[in-house]
């Protein structure tokens, strides 16, 4: 029997949603500091309006829905999924007010793309946007990569058991430390240490390649935030091509790979357990996947003959591949070049890389390496069963921080999410094709949106149909939260109608 959700459920959801919205308002204070530093008045006003609307909404929800009760699983999941919708709508307000987005839908698209660490953009005239708004674009990516709820857990919540439910709802089922609040804080510690190091490296490189010191520092912070959080926004419309620098490309590749690794793995590396890097199923799978898919891309690019030298082919092919595989979306080629200069084999390689993603408990989207590794192990186990005598007991193990026996439950979970992602990629591609785009391009863009990558072959633009924009927004949202918390909303609505 399905139980009908009660008013109390709605109140609990509303109360915690209100708290997270208040946290979002606090996040908008940071760009105001930037606007004061750069003396940008109108952008400061845009964010003031954004803060006022957010605080208003947050206050109303917290006050009307005030409760002392803790969250259950369903409520936690719904809070998470609604938080992301609220973040998109409220985060889009200052963006829309800047006048750099043609419609509120376009601003929502970029806000969701930012929070979900995707990187697809509809912003207009990025070259003349204020430092304040430009910082906000990168800041929301950093916040989204850490997880909006993780931030709230770290700073605004003083330990309650519902914390873990929201943490899981944000597609982070692995606890690094026994307490989920401490886990959230550790994720922040890792990110801030890398933030300082990465910004320094990019900032110094920026000065060495001829940028003005302030710009190089600003770009350094922004590029770090979107590289480590595998987001893909950049301060200029040319993405990484703007810098015309091999050193800049190399640093961003390192940051993208770091961002694609499991935070739990970072913890073990920091603790001196370097062997984990070699033994872990995720890093092994990632390495094999990169080598195999790069071979495909390289053969494809060699066939086209676009890149005259092997080193040039490697630089262009490898960069786009790492960017796609890590789910970042930085480009060192122009979007239409994917369709015009790359052949179907190279594009298929890129689509495959984007669809797989990085590690679980990282900032990447997509299917993720642990699930691919588990499915591969399951396949190997079944093959062994066929080959070996019937009486033989076949046991398969894999190493992920510790040795784990391959159980059917694990395989089922990995397979379900994999199938769900494939359906999501296909759904976006179908909508794209129904809007008149060719199959490969539609699949490329759909995979990029659903896997939170952000590479574009030229479809994403202000001119694309509103239906496709909404589809990509949905894909980014569902893909970032890995289905469960979004499906819970559907379950909630169903229970409200059919429940007793």
């Amino acid at each position, binding site marked *: 029997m399905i139980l009908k959700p009660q008013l109390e459920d709605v109140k609990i959801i509303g109360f915690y949603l209100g708290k997270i919205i208040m946290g979002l308002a606090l996040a908008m204070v940071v760009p105001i500091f930037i606007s004061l530093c750069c003396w940008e008045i*109108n952008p400061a006003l845009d964010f003031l309006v954004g803060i006022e609307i957010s605080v208003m909404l947050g206050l109303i929800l917290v006050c009307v829905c005030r409760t002392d009760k803790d969250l259950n699983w369903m409520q936690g999941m719904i809070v998470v999924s609604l938080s992301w919708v609220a973040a998109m709508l409220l985060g889009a307000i200052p963006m829309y007010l800047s006048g750099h987005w043609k419609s509120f839908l376009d601003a929502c698209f970029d806000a969701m793309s930012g929070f979900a660490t995707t990187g697809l953009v509809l912003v207009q005239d990025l070259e003349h946007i204020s430092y304040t708004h430009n910082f906000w674009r990168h800041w929301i990516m950093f916040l989204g990569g850490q997880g909006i709820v993780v931030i709230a857990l770290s700073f605004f919540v003083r330990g309650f058991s519902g914390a873990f439910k929201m943490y899981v709802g944000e597609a982070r089922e692995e606890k690094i430390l026994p307490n989920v609040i401490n886990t959230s804080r550790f994720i922040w510690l890792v990110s801030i240490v890398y933030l300082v190091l990465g910004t320094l490296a990019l900032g110094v490189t920026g000065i060495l390649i001829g940028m003005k010191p302030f710009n190089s520092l600003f770009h350094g912070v922004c590029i770090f935030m979107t590289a480590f959080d595998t987001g893909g926004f950049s301060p200029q419309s*040319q993405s990484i091509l703007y810098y*015309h620098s091999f050193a800049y490309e190399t640093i961003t590749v390192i940051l993208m790979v770091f961002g694609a690794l499991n935070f739990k793995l970072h913890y073990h590396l920091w603790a001196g357990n370097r062997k984990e890097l070699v033994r872990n199923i995720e890093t092994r799978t990632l390495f094999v996947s990169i080598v195999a898919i790069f071979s495909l891309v390289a053969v494809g690019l060699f066939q086209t003959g676009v890149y005259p030298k092997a080193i040039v082919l490697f630089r262009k092919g490898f960069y786009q591949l790492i960017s796609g595989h890590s789910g970042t979306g930085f480009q060192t080629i122009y979007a239409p070049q994917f369709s015009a200069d790359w052949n179907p084999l190279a594009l298929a390689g890129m689509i495959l890389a984007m669809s797989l993603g990085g590690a679980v408990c990282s900032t990447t989207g997509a299917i993720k390496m642990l699930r691919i590794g588990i499915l591969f192990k399951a396949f190997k186990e079944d093959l062994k069963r066929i080959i070996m005598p019937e009486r033989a007991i076949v046991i398969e193990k894999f190493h992920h921080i510790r040795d784990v026996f391959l159980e059917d439950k694990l395989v089922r979970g990995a397979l379900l999410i994999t199938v769900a992602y494939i359906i999501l990629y296909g759904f976006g591609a179908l909508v794209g094709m129904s809007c008149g785009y060719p199959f490969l391009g539609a699949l490329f863009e759909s995979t990029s949106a659903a896997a939170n990558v952000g590479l574009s072959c030229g479809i994403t633009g202000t001119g694309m149909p509103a239906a496709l924009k909404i589809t990509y927004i949905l894909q980014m949202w569902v893909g970032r939260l890995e289905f469960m918390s979004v499906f819970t909303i559907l379950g909630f609505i169903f229970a409200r109608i059919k429940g007793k």
Partner: protein
Amino acid sequence: MRKIFFVILSAVFLVFSPGAAFSQTLSSSDLIDNAGLYDGKLVTFSGEAIGDIMKRGDFAWVNVSDGKNSLGVWMSASLAKEIDFAGSYKTRGDKIEIVGVFHRACPEHGGDLDIHACSLRKIVSGGAVPEKTDFKKIKLSIILSGVLFLIWILTLFKRK
């Protein structure tokens, strides 16, 4: 007669040779979408200098935007010196016209799509763009502050 023949022959050579020049200004979309067609050819491209003028020894990178895309232009530092303003939030960059060799995947610069400038002409000078305060936004934020204050008072009453 000989002179006429020479002029015609030169014109034919200019049009059909691998390094043929496109005197008509091309847009960034033309160049990116038909990169194979223009590869290695002399092209004319115009737009606003944006971002940073990045000096690299005797040369410099200037990114030029025609409103649709920005293209990287590699030029001598002496040419780059002619650019006084590069576009940003508070600056309108110089509008320049570049004549140079277009590369679909420049072997010298790691396969970047770029233009190696031979000449640069400033079409319109840029300059500082002072920010005009938007009073509508000020009004809106004041009204919202009032509403917010009211809601806050109401929440205090509800708590009591």
